[in-house]
């Protein structure tokens, strides 16, 4: 196969919020920048983010970045790196105001400032009272953000390669990153994008789970590609789940439904949250509600023929209340659960929502790996930002509205680092190895030549069901152990996938097979990392690590205050220290404490 070579100063993979923010930095600095995306940029999953972006502007209530930093460290259950968290919280106002200048239509206060709303987990004065910190553009914050950034990139002459899928990283013998191989979907042709800098901003991999709120595009391409290239993946056991996704579909039923009086019931019709959280009941925190639901299902009190979900009941609310206060929920229930919630309850399950781990980076957006005794040695030419990266600011659990902030801050900082390296002359265009495209061509050839293999859909479904059952929101030692073996078998099966359509033009089956390769890497990383971490922390909650006086919330700082690193090669684990030291010498570390709200 002919392989075309294209040369740029920088190539960015992914055109969601993080990719567009990074691209803008590079293009405005005059660097020749290519952005690859599987879909048109404004179709990226950033659009689905409605909640807002956190910044301690203090427009609506008194606020400062120290309080935001405290909330984020506490939210992360102390697994977040405090230098990166300080950096993000300090930069928040700058990146939000910048976005305002780019034309982002934020909601306004009466005196014309950006209006801010309260959001779960964000507080004033180190946890004392709720704060109004979230900046939003109605319920279209992510959408408005993408449009503002895209228009700005068009103005800055960023070159977009739309409907191109990145396949593999190109590394030389020193381990430096020299670009990527990618496939043009329309023609099936493979190209080499040779560059001084490669920035990954490919989003999360929520599709590894059977029940996921993530759009189909979230197949963890950058994360899988990095793993195949020998880059370890950090803290992949930490996934945020939302309690109420429609069973079998994953579509999110907002927390507002329970706020308006929605009740969770088991197969006997019992309001089971009364047993788990007698005071807050159905309005207990996300993790408490999710674990209670899983306990009901695991103990045989689930609903439906497979007893695999519970019911969210709003039939006691008047139809007028449902139509007026919960617009959209009725349509979602009818479309995706086949029930009219005015007449019948909605089947729901805890559903995967956000990936806290990813490609390890520092706060400058440089990808870092252990090398020569340094746990955080930068990989030359390689940067990452957004959900695919692990800076690590979310640690073991992300606060709402910190994801849009993450992609703005680290999209920008990775761009700034690339520009600084470019201007200093340290970012050179290194010679490509002779076999630069070999790995990608071999993967395609294997897929095209496979006989007697398995369907991509079957292998993907096996992976998703295994991950849901064995590494879901509430984790059990025996299930995790069994899940590790099962995922190893499924990973083997994924090496023999077969596609019926071998054509080149718009071959969706081939694209899905290549995406599955990436999902499998992420699923393996998740379950192996989760099985090994013998504590509960943030979103990783084990049945055998309960809340005790010695180990509050099941957290074991003596043995497990460390980041996991999973290597695809050998399916092995390593660990590195958490950075409890803030970036600035005059900023105090947030001391370890029990995470209670």
């Amino acid at each position, binding site marked *: 196969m002919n392989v075309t070579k294209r040369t740029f100063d920088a190539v960015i993979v992914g055109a969601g919020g993080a990719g567009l923010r990074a691209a803008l930095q590079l293009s405005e600095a005059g660097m020749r920048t290519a952005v690859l995306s599987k879909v048109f940029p404004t*179709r990226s999953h950033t659009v*689905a983010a409605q909640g807002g972006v956190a910044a301690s502007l203090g427009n609506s209530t008194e606020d400062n970045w120290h309080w935001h930093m405290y909330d984020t460290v506490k939210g992360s259950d102390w697994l977040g790196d405090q230098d990166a968290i300080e950096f993000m919280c300090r930069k928040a106002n700058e990146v939000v105001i910048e976005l305002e200048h780019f034309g982002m239509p934020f909601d306004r206060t009466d005196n014309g400032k950006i209006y801010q709303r309260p959001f779960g987990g964000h507080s004033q004065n180190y946890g004392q009272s709720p704060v109004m910190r979230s900046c939003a553009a109605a319920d279209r914050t992510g*959408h408005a953000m993408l449009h503002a950034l895209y228009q700005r990139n068009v103005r800055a002459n960023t070159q977009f390669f739309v409907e191109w899928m990145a396949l593999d990283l190109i590394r030389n013998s020193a381990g430096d990153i020299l670009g990527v191989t990618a496939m043009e979907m329309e023609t099936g042709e493979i190209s080499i994008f040779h560059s001084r800098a490669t920035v990954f901003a490919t989003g999360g991999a929520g599709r590894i789970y059977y029940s996921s709120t993530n*759009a*189909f595009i979230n197949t963890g391409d950058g994360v899988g590609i990095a793993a195949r290239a020998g880059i370890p993946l950090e803290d992949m056991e930490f996934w945020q789940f939302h309690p109420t996704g429609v069973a079998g*579909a994953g579509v999110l039923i907002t927390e507002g439904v329970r706020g308006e009086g929605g009740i969770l019931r088991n197969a006997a019709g019992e309001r089971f949250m009364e047993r788990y959280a007698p005071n807050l009941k159905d309005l207990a925190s996300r993790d408490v509600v999710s674990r209670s639901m899983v306990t009901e299902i695991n103990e045989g009190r689930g609903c439906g023929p497979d007893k695999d979900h519970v019911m969210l009941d709003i039939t006691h609310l008047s139809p007028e209340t449902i139509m007026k206060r919960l617009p959209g929920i009725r*349509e979602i229930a009818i479309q*995706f659960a086949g029930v009219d919630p005015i007449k019948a309850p909605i089947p729901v399950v805890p559903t995967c929502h956000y990936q806290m781990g990813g490609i390890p980076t520092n706060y400058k957006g440089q990808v870092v790996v252990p090398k020569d005794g340094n746990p955080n040695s930068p990989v030359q030419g390689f940067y990452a930002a957004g959900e695919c990266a692990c800076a690590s600011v979310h640690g073991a659990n992300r606060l709402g509205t910190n994801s849009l902030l993450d992609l703005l801050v680290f999209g920008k900082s990775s761009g700034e680092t690339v520009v600084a390296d470019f201007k200093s002359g340290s970012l050179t265009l290194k010679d490509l190895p002779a076999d630069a495209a070999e790995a990608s061509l071999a993967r395609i050839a294997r897929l095209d030549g496979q006989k007697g293999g398995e369907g991509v859909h079957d292998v993907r479904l096996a992976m998703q069901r295994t991950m849901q059952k064995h590494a879901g929101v509430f984790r059990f030692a025996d299930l995790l152990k069994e899940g590790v073996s099962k995922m190893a078998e499924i990973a083997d099966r994924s090496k023999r996938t077969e596609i019926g359509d071998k054509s080149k033009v*718009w071959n969706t089956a081939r694209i899905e097979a290549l995406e599955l390769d990436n999902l499998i890497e992420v699923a393996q990383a998740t379950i192996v990392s989760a099985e090994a971490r013998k504590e509960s922390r943030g979103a990783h909650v084990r049945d055998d690590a309960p809340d005790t006086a010695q180990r509050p919330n099941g957290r074991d700082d003596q043995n497990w205050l460390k980041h996991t690193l999973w290597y695809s090669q050998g399916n092995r684990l390593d660990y590195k220290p958490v950075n409890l030291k803030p970036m600035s010498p005059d900023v105090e570390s947030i001391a370890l404490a029990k995470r209670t709200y």
Partner: protein
Amino acid sequence: MEAKGDKAVINRGRLRWHASRHALLELDILFRRFLDEHFDRLDDSQLAVLEELLALEDLDLWEMICGRRECRDARWNGLVELLRAS
């Protein structure tokens, strides 16, 4: 003729991809059902309408399917109805 045939194949392939990946899970699921049930039977004029629908913002298209936003063009009604029923 062959060139025209190729063009039609490319166009169908492109539309199938556009229809299969959206910013929102809601649309991904509806379009997956729609692609399975209806796509291969769409004629040229329906494909042209589909192309127009896929050029809309995902949030607007979703609101249209939910009936919270009116179709700007009466020609879209048929396909929007099919999507809603998928």
